[in-house]
């Protein structure tokens, strides 16, 4: 007994039997990206990336990605709070709420795009009352991205909220802090790492958004044609250019994830 306990302490539970599937998983996730990097037309890269359509798609992707992340933060953190507190609710509304937040994660994005058209399109449930046409505008790109990416933020923040110690909030309340002060001074700082991680995931997902965007917002250079859409179109005629564009997307996401995650998420700092 003491021997096995010591061994478990030293090696954790990572037996060779776990290393093999873990290695396979890593290969499955990593090797396609390696292939992309190997096949990339490195010598033509600067020329390919300087094309006006590429530059405008990159600028559009970054601005819409940031905008949708900002909106997701403003709307998603309160939703995460509601979701975290829903543990005290009855089963039916609690499960319904959780399903509503999670469905966009599993819905094929193209279906999400059609759903957005049916709601906000010219003949949509709400869209028919709008004084302007929302599809084919940059605003529509942002809406599609928020629809697809916000659940990542909500679930990340909700996880952090559930794991946080509510006694601090209680203590602040007994000391006379108002509810909003507690939210601003206690709750939010406590879950800041979760918020940062969620915002980052949300941004990266928004950056890669394709299906809902092209269905709801369409594709027009400089207005709605984001980097993934430009990549898809390039793939039709110029696979090298498409690979170059994929690399840009990959590098932006990788840089964001590597540079920020370690700093923000406790426990994973090297």
């Amino acid at each position, binding site marked *: 007994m003491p021997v096995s306990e010591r061994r478990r302490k030293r090696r954790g539970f990572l037996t060779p039997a776990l290393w093999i599937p873990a290695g396979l998983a890593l290969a499955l996730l990593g090797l396609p990206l390696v292939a992309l990097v190997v096949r990339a037309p490195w010598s033509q890269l600067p020329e390919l990336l300087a094309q006006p359509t590429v530059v405008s798609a990159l600028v559009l992707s970054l601005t819409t990605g940031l905008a949708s992340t900002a909106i997701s933060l403003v709307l998603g953190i309160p939703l995460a709070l509601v979701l975290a507190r829903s543990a005290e609710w009855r089963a039916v509304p609690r499960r319904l709420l959780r399903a509503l937040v999670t469905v966009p994660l599993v819905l094929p994005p193209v279906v999400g795009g*059609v759903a957005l*058209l*049916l709601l906000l*399109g*010219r*003949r949509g449930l709400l869209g028919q009352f709008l004084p302007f*046409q929302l*599809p*084919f505008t940059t605003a529509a790109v942002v809406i599609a991205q928020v629809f697809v990416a916000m659940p990542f933020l909500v679930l990340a923040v909700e996880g952090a909220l559930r794991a946080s110690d509510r006694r601090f909030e209680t203590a602040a309340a007994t000391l006379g802090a108002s509810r909003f002060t507690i939210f601003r001074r206690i709750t939010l700082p406590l879950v800041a790492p979760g918020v940062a991680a969620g915002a980052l995931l949300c941004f990266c997902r928004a950056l890669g958004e394709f299906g809902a965007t*092209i*269905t709801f*917002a*369409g*594709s*027009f*250079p400089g207005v*709605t*044609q984001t980097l993934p*859409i430009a990549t*898809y*179109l*390039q*793939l*039709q*005629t110029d*696979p090298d250019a498409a690979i170059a564009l994929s690399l840009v997307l990959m590098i932006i996401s990788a840089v964001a994830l590597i540079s920020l995650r370690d700093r923000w998420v406790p426990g994973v700092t090297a």
Partner: protein
Amino acid sequence: MTRVLAVLVGAGLLAGCSAQPAQEQEDGTLSGTVTVFAAASLTDTFGAIADAFEREHPGVAVALNFGGSSALATQIVEGAPADVFAAASESTMTPVADAALVDGDPTVFVTNTLEIAVPAGNPAGVTGLSDFANPALSIAICAAEVPCGAASATVFDGAGIVPAPDTLEQDVKAVLTKVELGEVDAGLVYRTDVLAAGPEVDGIAFPEASTALGKYPIAQLAASTNQDAAAAFIAYVLSPAGKKVLDDAGFGTP
């Protein structure tokens, strides 16, 4: 989805057939599976042709894979196991032929012409190609990178019209979806798409369309593991029975 089911059912029937007495196989009948990669615009027609072909050759199952022609060409060049490739343009067949993956020469088996698609009842009163230059209308056309977009560009160039599209879609079905939902006043699609779309979409033929006739080539692939059945499938597509299915769907004869 129906097609996938049909293929599965076909495979099930095939499994049933293989248990039958061997005399069926001995008189030179075809067997096995023919994998056909076909342009998305052939979805309905090739589905019907495959069903008829399977009825004629009970030992053969046709597995259909539909997609954008360029994407299919890429998959074939990257080694996807296909026996037959039917593309929506000669240019998308080229990379496959250039990679020496085609057995013989591709045959152009149908043509397709562009048609204006408008929501049922034509609410914006679109009359012809010149309406595509009206910035007040909501317009969808294919991106220049995909075959329908290249054909659209040829038509606009020939007519001296500079279109004012609100969106450049990634394929012709995406244009059609936007028309069906009434999100655009007009879209430029193929005649076959208008016929397949049903009552939500009206078609308007226009004379300039003859300047960009879409040519669909079909080819047997060199890497095919079922050469006889692949050749038989192509022969069936080119036969009067196959032609009729394609004619009825709005395709033209080359």
